[in-house]
């Protein structure tokens, strides 16, 4: 996701300084997000340069600067929110390419690879289930919703493994063209 719009979205409610933006982000995403404070400051500076945020009042304690959304920033955020995520499906896990390559190289039985991947997905489903339970128990609905999305995605990955298994993927020999 875009850090730029994430920051704009958090500034929508009230002016915040960089460290608060990071904390709000972490609270919302429940520790599933790995951006450091340096990236937040850089992002805020660029957003200020582009006129999307502006300082709210003078620098305070230890040079802390509050930022608020500018009217342009508000407009950019509204447009981003209104825009559906389209464009290509993002496939960034190795397995997509790994399976295709292995089918060419091994030129044979991929059932073992599919079975191992399937197990990994089952374990991930279990981990996600436990995380969702914990999030709900702790009243962290944002995180629970995020985990639910991840659960359904992993379920789809698992179904893909089953489909490949049942079509005896790999055993027909990989086409080289």
């Amino acid at each position, binding site marked *: 996701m875009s850090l730029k719009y994430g920051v704009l979205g958090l500034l929508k409610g009230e002016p915040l300084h960089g460290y608060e933006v990071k904390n709000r982000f972490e609270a919302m995403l429940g520790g599933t997000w790995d*951006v450091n404070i340096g990236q937040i400051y850089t992002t805020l500076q660029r957003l200020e340069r582009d006129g999307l945020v502006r300082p709210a009042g003078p620098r305070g304690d230890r040079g802390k600067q509050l930022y608020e959304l500018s009217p342009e920033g508000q407009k950019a955020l509204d447009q981003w929110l209104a825009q559906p995520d389209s464009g290509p499906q993002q496939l960034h896990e190795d397995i997509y390419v790994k399976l295709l390559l292995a089918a060419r190289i091994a030129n044979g039985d991929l059932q073992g690879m599919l079975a191992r991947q399937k197990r*990994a997905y089952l374990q991930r489903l279990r981990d996600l289930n436990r995380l969702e339970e914990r999030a709900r128990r702790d009243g962290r609905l944002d*995180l629970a919703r995020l985990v639910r999305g991840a659960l359904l995605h992993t379920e789809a990955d698992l179904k893909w493994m089953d489909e490949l*298994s049942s079509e005896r993927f790999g055993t027909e020999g990989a086409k080289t063209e």
Partner: protein
Amino acid sequence: MDGRIVVGTFRDGGGENGMSELVRLTDVTKVYQGGLTGALNGISVSIEKGEFTAIMGPSGSGKSTMLNLVAGLDRPTSGTIAVGGTDLGKLGEAGLARFRRDHIGFVFQFFYLLPNLTALENILIPAQLMGNVATARAAELLDQLGITDVADRYPARLSGGQQQRVAVARALINNPMLLLADEPTGALDTHTGEQVMELLAGLHRQGQTILLVTHDAKLATRHAARVISVMDGKIVDDARLESPERAPSDVIRVRTEEVSR
């Protein structure tokens, strides 16, 4: 792969003195006349006491056949099935029916409650067949399953979730050593299905051995620490899943992109 996934070492549940075997299938084959659907082809597997095991597989894979054989509802073409040390193949029809009634609880997708009996009467049937008056046990189950206030209703006046609770209570009235569930959430909406699964999970925490057939991997992995995958009548995987507490970022990670330029 990052090495965090270790399958085959973790064992869930079990008694104080380690594991003891409750179910054993040895080289079990089931052939159906006129088709391969649901057939089993040389299955061997052991289920430990106290385990919550899920059997997964596509329709026609043989997963329900496996459950029906363990329940003694059907007999294998070859191979042996032992439940609680009893070889089911050595029992005659009456003996098998008695064994089912006394030791096996079965929950089905479509409840199968008798329409002209109340919820309570449905629950009491298996006990009455044993000649037991089990009203105290029934009251306990009604309370545990949260259906005390609908005990005198007929099935037609119960919601799907309530009907399945009644079916679970009926399955448990004789304190079975083994609870079998074939797609118990299949006819329920997501929320009600989760409640029924929570209920099974609660029973498991109290020590109930459960064998669940499902096609829902989310539900299976939520409650069962062991997942057996069946395909074309064979066991293709038997995974014992780990249950450690993981930091959220070790389970999912949201990626961010920095502002360009």
